[in-house]
């Protein structure tokens, strides 16, 4: 016990000794050498800056630059500790740049990391920067940063799929820019600069960490095809409005995919916005003609993947396949069309109440006979039909399966109509010719591609290759098969012939090569009440290279949408086919 107490005393002496050692060390640093360290603190005018990494560029499949960086001048202030100098700096700066003094003061005061400069004005012109440089001696803490800014050479053509980039953080906030941000962003760097007593940088910056530029994306999108699709869509919409055949035709979408891989070759959504102008995305920032109704002022919306509407008669190939595969009808069986009848108490009529007479599958597709397909719907019933919707990738599964490589908005269950408790027999008839259920143009494109390619469900994708800034390929994406379904080839052939007949007899007459197609006119009673025009097609018939889906919201007859399809196929057969 005695020993214990002695040893505690020893420890106490040791503890005291080491504290005295600290006292001695502190005395040496603070009092003996204090003067020297103090003058170092005075001249300690190192500043640390963040260097924003250049974002990776985005290129189209045909080598057109879709997104790149341009230089902008940002004016920043680093925190000057001396209040008088600081206030003088803020006043001078604000008068030169016409900024609000209180706002800038507040910005500087609330900035947590005083060591780094705060950007007070971005995108400043070179003339203003030169003027600031002349007055630098009055503005201690002034920092001119040269930062990259996102620039899209085609401001209206790819707005929705590319998405926007926030100016401040320089990160993607929608579309591909968001989905692939980790690749595009690169790594920001930082460097240290010493400034003299007048806050003028002296010497070369010393790099803490060099910025690493982001990776480049090469897309599957074909810029020229996209332009053709957008021009055609705009022209047709305008014509429809002017001729007052469809005064509400303000919006629409076009999707072109490769049925053999899932590559998305074009995706156009109207209306669109100037992606280089951050204000244009905000409602009111874009100038709509006065007559544009409010529901159509949705320029930020990507109607190809985030917007669903009933698809009308373009559903009929699916209904036909379902009935053939489940033995509810044979290719040769005929059903009598009187132009107008009741099926399961559901009044059903064909366009213009035309009586088609005895029609088989091919003829029914050719003339788009509602009574024929209504009967198939009645025979199959709801559950068989929904089973085939899912086989064709038209179901809820896409919500989580990453249907494309751009982010979705919030999606309702595509099949939620089934969940309604007011289901009655007539609904079996209506769903068969494309009413009640709603789908996105991209879903429709995928379903038509499955008919064209024999039943393979490819994941539609936009990014082909990723390369780093040295040009080395980081990733090269291969087509992804989500699933395959074994259809009877004879059944597929029947449906394809029906599409060929429909196109040849009407809207695709005279096209350079055999092309399959189908129109759709989807009724929609919700205001403003006009029908939606749809057209789907693929070609060439024997060796399909592209699938085209055209959607004219409130565009009226499907035949109108076919005009856009025709333009796209004419372009493809003339300019693209031989290149392959």
């Amino acid at each position, binding site marked *: 016990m005695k*020993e*214990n*107490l002695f*040893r*505690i*005393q*020893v*420890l*106490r002496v040791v*503890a*005291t000794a*080491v*504290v005295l*050692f*600290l*006292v001695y*060390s*502190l*005395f040496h*640093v*603070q*009092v003996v*050498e*204090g*003067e*020297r*360290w*103090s003058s*170092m*603190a*005075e001249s*300690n005018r*190192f500043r640390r800056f963040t260097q924003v990494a250049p974002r990776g560029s985005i290129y189209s499949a045909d080598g057109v630059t879709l997104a790149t960086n341009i230089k902008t001048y940002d004016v920043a202030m680093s*925190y000057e*500790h001396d*209040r008088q100098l600081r206030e003088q700096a803020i006043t001078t700066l604000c008068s030169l740049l016409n900024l609000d003094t209180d706002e800038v003061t507040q910005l500087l*005061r609330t900035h947590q*990391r*005083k*060591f*780094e400069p705060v950007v007070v004005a971005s995108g400043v012109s070179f003339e203003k920067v030169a003027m600031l440089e002349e007055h630098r001696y009055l503005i201690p803490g002034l920092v001119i940063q040269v930062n990259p800014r996102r620039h899209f050479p085609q401001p209206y053509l790819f707005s929705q799929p590319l998405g926007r980039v926030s100016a401040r953080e320089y990160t993607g906030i929608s579309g591909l820019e968001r989905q692939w941000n980790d690749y595009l962003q690169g790594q920001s760097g930082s460097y*240290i600069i010493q400034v003299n007593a007048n806050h003028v940088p002296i010497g070369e910056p*010393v*790099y*803490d960490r060099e910025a690493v530029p982001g990776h480049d994306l090469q897309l599957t999108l074909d810029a020229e095809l996209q332009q053709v699709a957008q021009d055609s869509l705009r022209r047709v919409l305008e014509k429809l409005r002017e001729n007052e055949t469809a005064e509400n035709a303000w919006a629409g979408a076009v999707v072109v995919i490769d049925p053999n891989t899932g590559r998305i070759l074009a995706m156009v959504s109207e209306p669109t916005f100037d992606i280089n102008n951050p204000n244009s995305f905000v409602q009111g920032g874009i100038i709509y003609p006065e007559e544009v109704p409010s529901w159509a002022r949705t320029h930020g919306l990507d109607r190809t993947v985030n917007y669903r509407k009933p698809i009308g008669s373009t559903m009929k190939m699916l209904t036909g396949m379902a009935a053939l595969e489940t033995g509810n009808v044979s290719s040769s069986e005929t059903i009598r069309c009187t132009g107008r009848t009741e099926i399961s108490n559901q009044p059903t009529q064909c366009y213009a109440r035309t009586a088609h007479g005895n029609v088989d599958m091919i003829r029914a597709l050719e003339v788009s006979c509602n009574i024929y397909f209504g009967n198939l719907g009645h025979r199959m019933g709801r559950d068989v039909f929904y089973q085939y919707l899912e086989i064709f990738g038209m179901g809820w599964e896409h919500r989580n399966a990453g249907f494309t490589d751009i982010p979705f908005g919030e999606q309702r269950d595509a099949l939620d109509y089934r969940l309604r408790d007011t289901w009655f027999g007539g609904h079996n008839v209506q769903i068969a010719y494309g009413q009640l259920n709603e789908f996105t143009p991209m879903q429709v494109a995928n379903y038509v591609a499955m008919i064209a390619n024999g039943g393979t469900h490819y994941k539609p994708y936009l990014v082909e290759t990723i390369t780093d800034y040295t040009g080395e390929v980081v990733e090269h994406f291969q087509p992804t098969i989500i699933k395959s379904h074994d259809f009877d080839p004879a059944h597929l052939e029947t449906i394809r012939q029906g599409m060929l007949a429909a196109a040849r007899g009407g809207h695709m007459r005279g096209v350079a090569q055999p092309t399959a197609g189908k129109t759709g006119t989807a009724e929609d009673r919700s205001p403003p009440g006009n029908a939606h025009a749809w057209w789907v097609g693929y070609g060439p018939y024997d060796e399909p290279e592209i699938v085209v889906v055209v959607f004219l919201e409130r565009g009226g007859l499907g035949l109108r949408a076919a005009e856009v399809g025709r333009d796209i196929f004419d372009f493809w057969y003339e300019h693209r086919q031989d290149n392959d």
Partner: protein
Amino acid sequence: MGREKFLRNFDWTLLATVILLGLFGLLMVAASTNTGDAELREILTSRFVFRQGVFLLIGIGAMVLLSIIDYNEWRRFIIPIYIFTLFVLLLVMFRGQSGILGAQRWIQIGFFSFQPSEFAKITIILTMAVVLSREDFSIDSWYNLALAIGPAVPPMILIFMQPDLGTSLVFIAITIGALFVAGIRWIHLGILSLSGLIGSVLAYLFVFKDYQQQRLAIFLDPWQDLQGMGWQIIQSKIAVGSGQFWGRGLFQGTQSQLDFLPEKHTDFIFSVVGEELGFLGAMALLAVYLFMVWKVFQVALEAKDLFGRLICIGVSSMLIFQLVVNVGMTISVMPVTGLPLPLISYGGSSLLATCIGMGLVLSVAAHRDTSLF
């Protein structure tokens, strides 16, 4: 024991000293996270000050509560406490969150992330005290010595692997302090120290991660690495030195205010003390600190049993080691190891663990046998 006796034995001075240091810490956290022109209301409601204040209140509560409970009660729970500590340290390893330099030190519980290694120090203080104070146990042989050191080794290795070199060194300080007072033979102590020296050289060569080696190399010559760790060391020394005798005044230090100092509210808080309060302020802080440690030693001397003594020795070893390493690192007389300054640095876990330790010491003081004196 009667209430009257408890109140008479209670060490009010020690309690007041701890609270005083805690409040001083709060002030320094405010000074290192706010600039001179911030308003008082802003400072009080700023995230760092508010959180530290809440933890200080909780800490004081825990300290008072622990001082009331007889410290001998904890003997019965030592095995569950020890196992639980190991479990949580393992959890950090597999589920923890990375902090500075990718070290996994934190665990998220509700809104708070806490640092189990801080609490593990208290567990080891208690465990060593329980083992070494057993009637039938004496560390006169190598075998018994190994038995006594044994429990401290697993948590130490886990913390070293986080990696947190500083905190695992605190464990060594606690262990040495406890063994020394429990009566380790001088020859054993000598051999242990020598092998420890050789062991640390080997550890430096073969076990230390690159950055840990670098830290030590940079400690010897900070100017070789102006952009990285050397920057921090030099900036800290400039800060402390430029405080000179009187200091630059509270909230007035250019080094601290301009953010030349990384981690200035946590590990490098003493740089802010040195810069803004000068040699005078630093001396005042060291004096109060030394006074507190002396009081803990006094409680150890007056404790009624060896268990109580060893608790006090563990706590004082921890405090003095962290004080010297932390303050020393701000003026480059010690390498940077990432240890907080107990009661002063920002950080709820460290503050709470220190208060728990002081609560145990206060309990030893309050339950001492006064008939001896």
